[in-house]
C-alpha cells in the first residue's frame, strides 16, 4: 500500500503516535505530520525549525540597496542636469529611493525563500486528508516497511488507522 496514517484529535495523542513510530524504527524523514495550525509548543511540531530566511532577507536587502544606489547615481549622470542648484548626484535625496528598494528587497527575499522552502506552489501530496482542516492532526508514513508496527504506533487514531 502507498501509505498508512492516523487522525488524532489532541496533540498529546499525536505526540504519542510520533514517539511510537520512532520506536518502531521509522526514519524521521518518512514521518508525515500535517495540522491546521502551527503546533510549535509540542515536540512533534517543532522540527525543521532552522531556516536561512533571516539571512536571505538581509541578502535581499543588500541587493535592493545596491540596486537603489546604482539606479539613482548612474541614471542621474546619464543626462546630467542640475536642478535647484543641487548637485547632479544628490545622495541625500537618493537615500530615500535606496531605502525603499532595500526594504522591498528584504521583503521579496523572504517571500521567495518561503515559497521555495515550503515547496509552494505545489501539488497536494497523496498522503493528505481533508479532515486535517477540521482540527485533526495527521500522522502518517508513506510506503511503510513494518506495517504491523506502524499500525500499532498509530492506534490512537480516531476512527482507526487509515490506509491509502
Amino acid at each position, binding site marked *: 500500500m502507498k501509505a498508512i496514517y492516523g487522525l488524532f484529535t489532541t496533540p498529546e495523542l499525536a505526540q504519542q503516535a510520533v514517539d511510537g513510530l520512532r520506536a518502531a524504527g521509522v526514519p524521521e524523514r518518512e514521518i508525515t505530520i500535517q495540522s491546521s495550525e502551527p503546533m510549535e509548543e509540542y515536540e512533534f511540531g517543532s522540527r525543521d525549525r532552522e531556516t536561512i530566511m533571516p539571512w536571505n532577507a538581509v541578502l535581499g536587502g543588500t541587493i535592493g540597496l545596491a540596486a537603489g544606489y546604482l539606479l539613482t547615481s548612474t541614471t542621474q549622470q546619464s543626462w546630467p*542636469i*542640475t*536642478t*535647484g*542648484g*543641487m548637485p547632479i548626484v*544628490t545622495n541625500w*535625496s537618493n537615500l530615500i529611493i535606496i531605502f525603499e528598494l532595500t526594504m522591498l528587497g528584504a521583503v521579496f527575499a523572504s517571500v521567495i525563500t518561503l515559497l521555495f522552502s515550503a515547496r509552494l506552489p505545489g501539488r497536494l501530496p497523496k498522503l493528505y486528508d481533508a479532515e486535517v482542516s477540521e482540527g485533526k492532526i495527521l500522522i502518517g508514513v508513506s510506503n511503510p516497511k513494518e506495517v504491523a508496527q506502524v499500525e500499532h504506533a498509530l492506534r490512537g487514531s480516531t476512527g482507526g488507522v487509515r490506509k491509502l
Partner: protein
Amino acid sequence: MHWIRIERYWEGEFPEVKVKFRPVLCQQCDDAPCEPVCPTYASSHSEEGLNSQIYNRCIGTRYCANACGYNVRFFNFFTPSWDKPLHLQLNPDVSVREGGVMEKCTFCIQRINAGKVSAGIQQRPLMDGEIQPACVQSCTANALVFGDLADPDSMVSKLANSPRGTKLLEELGTKPKITYLQQGSWDDSQNR
C-alpha cells in the same frame, strides 16, 4: 493668464492714496524651488542659467507651481482653441501648449534663440541690448533692462550691482535673477 503681471498696492486713505506697482514675472532663479520638485525634469535649468519649462515633458502635477514662491507659473487647465481667423494671431515661434501642461515666462526664449542665430550667421558676438524680450521692448518708460548678467560690461550687470537693487522675496533663498531698483537718492547720478 499673463506670464507677467503688474502688482498694484494701494496705500493710504482717499484722497491721499498712493499706488505702488511692480512687474512680477518668472525670476529665473539660480536655486529655483520649482526645479527639484518636478518628477519629469520638465522644469529644469538650462546651461545659460534660465529656468526652462519643457512642455513635452510636463505631466501636469502642478508641484512646481506650488513650490514657486512668486506664483508666476500658470497651468493650462483647458486646451485652448481659437476660432478662425483668430488663429492667425499666434506667434509661429512660440509653441502652443495643450491642456495639462505648465507654462511661464521664458524670457522670450524664441527671441533669445533668434538673436543667437543671427549673430551666429554673421559670425559676431551678441551686442548688449540686441535681444529684447517682448516686455522690455514694449515698455514705453524703458523701465525694463535685459542682457547678459555674465558680462560685467553689460547695462544689466551694472544695474544689478547698483546699491538701489533689491531682490524679490530674497529671504526664500531662491537667488532670483531679476533685480528691482528702488527710487534713488540725490547722489545716484551715475545710475538711471
